[in-house]
């Protein structure tokens, strides 16, 4: 994986919009990012230092399903999707399906605004 770049986003600025081609993954170094539902603009998740977002870039034809906005002045490391996609391509088909299905489930939960309540194991 190469091509790490630092990006600075000012409070209130958008880093990317839902519907854009996803070709980079981000890791928050400083500040915080809010992921927003593109239809309702409701917050989906707050991403803070050490956490990543933009996972759609791992798929060769991934597109953004959420909009990312800086909640404060924020610094992120930007990782090109090409390297991640090469890594994924070297894995088994089950792993590729796992990533696709996890991202689809995440999207489903975001769409329905699901907040699962833990169930006691039967």
């Amino acid at each position, binding site marked *: 994986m190469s091509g790490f770049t630092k990006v600075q986003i000012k409070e209130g600025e958008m880093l990317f919009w839902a519907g854009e081609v996803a070709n980079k993954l981000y890791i928050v170094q400083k500040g915080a990012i809010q992921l927003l539902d593109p239809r309702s603009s409701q917050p989906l998740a707050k991403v803070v230092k050490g956490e990543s977002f933009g996972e759609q870039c791992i798929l060769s034809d991934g597109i953004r399903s959420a909009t990312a906005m800086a909640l404060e002045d924020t610094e992120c490391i930007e990782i090109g999707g090409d390297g991640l996609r090469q890594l994924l391509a070297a894995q*088994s088909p089950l792993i590729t399906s796992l990533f696709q299905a996890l991202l689809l489930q995440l999207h489903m939960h975001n769409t329905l605004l699901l907040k699962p309540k833990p169930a006691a194991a039967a």
Partner: protein
Amino acid sequence: MDTETDTDTSANSNTSIPAHFSVNVDKIKLVDVGNPLSPDAVSMYDGHGLSAQDRLYFCLRQSTTLGHCVFNPGEKIAVRGDRVHFAQIVISGDMTASDEENNFSYGPGSVIGLAEGMANLPYSFTVTATTTVTTRFIPVHDAQQELMQLNAGLRGICRTAIVRTLGLKEIPENLK
């Protein structure tokens, strides 16, 4: 279905119309029925005529490695609190889903139990087929085994998706 995702997020147990999730199957059919390499199909796929979830569904449905399952109307696909052995990706059909407070309606593109299973947590929702439902399934134990062998970067992305999907505050022990 006119919109990319047919969704009503306002519903809960106090309303008569439950929130609904489904990919846009009609649009996807335009891409892969007939000739998937036709100019229209290629144009739609390349031109982002498909939403993020439509594309993921399209890829999963075409998978040559995942097994198939069929559920009859009235059959339970998942029971809240039960351990997840096989996560289901819904290819066709309709379902209801419920926990202690909410009711939802699921359609094609819904994913049942994957994040929970990967985190060694039980099903969050009871899901019942209301029509004949076809799925592709992921054996959770196999997926967990392969995840542990993965490069740390990819494993981290997977972990993030699981934690965010389930709204967890901490990383589950088995994914650390």
